[in-house]
Structures are given as structure tokens and as C-alpha cells.
């Protein structure tokens, strides 16, 4: 028996009569890097939003470690260990890199409502925060404001922040979107590195990334599951080739 960490059962989402996600049954195995791909408008982001409770499903079920979390609140979900990072690089621009990471750690101290305490009580967390920054090669930038970081580093910072929350399951929405080639390489390696002992579900258009590090790929089209399997299986599937990869040789090699 495979160890399934996240499972959806006939998950659907409708927007005013338009079905963006249609009866999706997704199974994510523990320890995998699982990619969700598909043509534009296939419903990948919507799917993510359903999993992280930014949207409420029209029907269907979401199970996390066997528990039904379909109607659990977003904050609660993240406390259970499902953490998402965003499609557009999203950091707290006017906090330092260190503070950015610390915000995530701070929650577990349970003092976040303590408006009478000094912020210095948080310095106990600095060590752990620095360790996380080191994991993504950002320790040199600890005192830099996030807004001043180069683009690729912001991504790294975001991943460090996400790691700080000790996720069991990380959801990454197009982690390499809009990045130059060098950064793509760095971030791909980073994802591979941090996947140890965790499960990662990501949306990605860059086939180099997908083929390089993903254990399993699910292809969505028009809201429904089109194909599933390893990169080799999926990339040879004629339906996927037609709907997504395109027909020429260039496409099979990956567009980027």
C-alpha cells in the first residue's frame, strides 16, 4: 500500500456555471515531489486554492493524512502542516530577511497576541531563523530588507519562510515563473534539497524542472485529470502531447 498524504475525492469547483475544476481525484504520496501541469486555464491554480482553502469547493472531499479537511479553516490547515507558497513572489518587503523568516516561527511561541511584551522576546528564535536562511544560502542577507533582494533570492527567502513552518506538505505554485535560467537552476536544486523528509506538490510550466526532479506528474485539462504518471510516461502520452506539450521536437525537450 502506498502511503498517501493528500487525497482529493471528486473535487469540483464551479464559477457561475463554469466548471474550473471537475471531479479531480488526486493522490499525493508521502515523500514525493508531485507536479501538477496542464494548459493555461486548466484549473491548476484553482485546485491549489481549494487545497489551501482560499476557495471553497463546490463539491468533493479533501483528505489530509486520512482526515477530512474539506471544511477546515485556512489558518487551521497551515497549522496542520500544509503550507503554500505563492505564484507571484510574496514576501514582506519592508521586513528584513531574518524577520521574514521569524514571522513564520513566531507563531509557535504562542505570544503573537501579546501586545504588552517586548519584541526582544523573539530573539530566541534568531538561531533557528539563521539556520533556515543558511539552508537556502541567504545567511549573508540576514539584515537586508526583503525588497532589496534580487528576484531569485526572494524566491529562496520565500521557501525558507515556508520551511520555517515545518511543513509536512509544501504547495508551490509555479516556483520558477519569471526567473532567469540561472535562478531556475538554483531554485530547482533548492526544491530538491528541501524535499528531503517532506512532500511537495507543485504547479510548473517549465518541463526542465518537472522532468528533473518530479517523481510523479498529474496533467489537468479543462478542469479534469487527463493523465498521471512519471515524466516519461506522461510525456509520451499522445493526449498530453497534443493538449500541452505540443507536437514538435523542441517541445519535448522542454521549452525553456
Amino acid at each position, binding site marked *: 500500500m502506498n502511503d498517501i498524504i493528500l487525497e482529493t475525492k471528486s473535487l469540483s469547483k464551479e464559477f457561475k456555471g463554469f466548471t474550473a475544476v471537475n471531479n479531480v481525484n488526486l493522490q499525493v504520496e508521502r515523500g514525493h515531489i508531485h507536479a501538477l501541469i496542464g494548459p493555461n486555464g486548466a484549473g491548476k491554480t484553482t485546485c491549489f486554492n481549494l487545497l489551501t482553502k482560499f476557495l471553497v469547493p463546490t463539491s468533493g472531499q479533501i483528505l489530509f493524512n486520512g482526515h477530512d479537511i474539506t471544511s477546515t479553516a485556512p489558518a487551521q490547515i497551515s497549522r496542520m502542516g500544509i503550507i503554500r507558497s505563492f505564484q507571484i513572489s510574496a514576501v514582506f518587503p519592508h521586513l528584513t530577511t531574518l524577520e521574514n523568516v521569524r514571522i513564520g516561527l513566531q507563531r509557535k511561541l504562542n505570544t503573537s497576541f501579546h501586545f504588552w511584551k517586548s519584541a526582544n522576546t523573539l530573539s530566541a528564535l534568531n538561531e533557528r531563523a539563521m539556520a533556515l536562511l543558511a539552508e537556502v544560502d541567504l545567511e549573508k542577507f540576514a539584515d537586508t530588507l526583503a525588497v532589496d533582494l534580487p528576484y531569485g533570492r526572494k524566491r529562496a527567502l520565500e521557501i525558507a519562510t515556508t520551511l520555517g513552518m515545518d511543513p509536512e506538505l509544501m504547495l508551490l505554485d509555479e516556483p520558477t515563473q519569471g526567473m*532567469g*535560467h540561472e535562478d531556475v537552476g538554483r531554485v530547482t536544486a533548492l526544491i530538491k534539497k528541501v524535499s528531503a523528509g517532506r512532500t511537495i506538490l507543485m504547479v510548473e510550466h517549465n518541463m526542465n524542472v518537472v522532468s528533473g526532479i518530479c517523481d510523479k506528474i498529474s496533467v489537468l485539462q479543462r478542469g479534469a485529470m487527463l493523465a498521471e504518471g512519471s515524466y516519461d510516461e506522461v510525456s509520451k502520452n499522445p493526449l498530453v502531447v497534443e493538449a500541452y506539450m505540443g507536437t514538435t521536437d523542441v517541445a519535448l525537450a522542454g521549452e525553456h
Partner: protein
Amino acid sequence: MSSLSPIVAVPSFQTIPALNISNLQAWYGEAHILHNVNLTVHAGEVVTLLGRNGAGRTTTLRAVMGLVGKRSGAIQIMGKDAISLATYKIAHLGVGYCPEERGIFSSLSVEENLLLPPVVSKTEKGMSIAEIYEMFPNLYERRNSQGTRLSGGEQQMLAVARILRTGARLLLLDEISEGLAPVIVQALGRMIMTLKEKGYTIVMVEQNFRFAAPLADRFYVMEHGQIVETFSATELEQKMPLLNTLLGV
């Protein structure tokens, strides 16, 4: 396609360049982004700006359109000085701009989006609506839906299609392959080739080198708000090592 004027401009150094930028400086607020950018695009050419994130490629296009905070230097479009003109007047020199994030209007239907940009050229005739729908059949299918309800790829097509109508002969295209499925990227590539055949002048900003490489006649590489390298398509092979270090391609 009879309505299309069969102008096929041959790149020639005798004719006036479609776009000529010299010593361009640009600022966003206090931040000095472009330092001394020089760039020439001849009529009928496809030119690609390469560079890392934040190198200033988008800013270059925006500076041409007058959409930055402050700029100085010289910009000539079809031989006319543009640096001191208001943005809308620049468009009327025959420029079509496709912005970084597509800029589809959600309060307008697909067809309204398509018809929005006014005709900017007195002499040039753009494509007719019929021609555009012929080129992008999916747009025709969804012409009455709200613009932003389209999928990402369709939005991108719409963003390009709407500037083909206006008679603009100089197209500034910013990252049109961004975030698109490979199959759609290929379709866009074919579209660019068609436009090139029809004699449009195109300046592309691209992250996706493999998409841009077969399309462009010439390349400019930007770094820190400056042009650091320029070469033609024929030199591409020998420049690969350089590009590797500059862009990590």
C-alpha cells in the same frame, strides 16, 4: 488578405530606422534604472532584448512608451523625436505595445478589448477584424465573454491581436511566452513568424531564450540597465559561451 498592403521592408541602412534610442536614461521615482541605453531597430527587423530579471528590459520598452517616471536621452520612432512626447502621441507614431502582464481589461468583453486601441496610423492599414479572427479562431469563439475569463494563453493572444488592428508597424512585445503551456508558446512562435513575413518591426523582450532564438534577426543583451552585448542571428552560435556566462542559458 487582399486588404493588407504588401509592404515588405528590407532591412537597409539607407532607410530611417523604425526605432532609434541613444543615451537613454530612465528613473522610477528616485531609482535610476536605465543608464545610457543605445539601440537601433530597422524596419522589418525582429530584435530580442535578453537579460536577467531586473536587467531593465521591460523598463526600456516602457521608457520608449513614456511610461516611466522620468527619462532623458533621445528616442526616434520612424525618424520622429519621441522623448518629449506624451505617451498617447508616441502610440500615434505607429507603435503597438503589449505589456508584461497582458493587460486585458476585465470590464470589457473580448471583442471590446480587441476594438479598444484606436487606429494610430493615417497611412498604414492594420489587419481587419476578420483577418484577426481568422488568425486566432479561439478569440472568435469567445468574442462575447469577459476579457479576463479567457485562459492565460488566449489572453496573451488577445493582447497581441489587439495591437495588430491599429496600423502600428512597430510592435513592442514584453514576455509574451511567459507562463504559457508549451503548445501555446509554439503557436505564438508561428504567429511572430507570420508577422515578420508581413513586414512588421518587432522588439521582443524574452526570458525564454529557446523561444526567441529562432525568431530574432538580432539580439541585445542587457545588464544593470545597460546594453552589454549585441549580435545578429548568424553570430548566435559563436556567442553561446558568452550568453552562458551572462544569462546562464
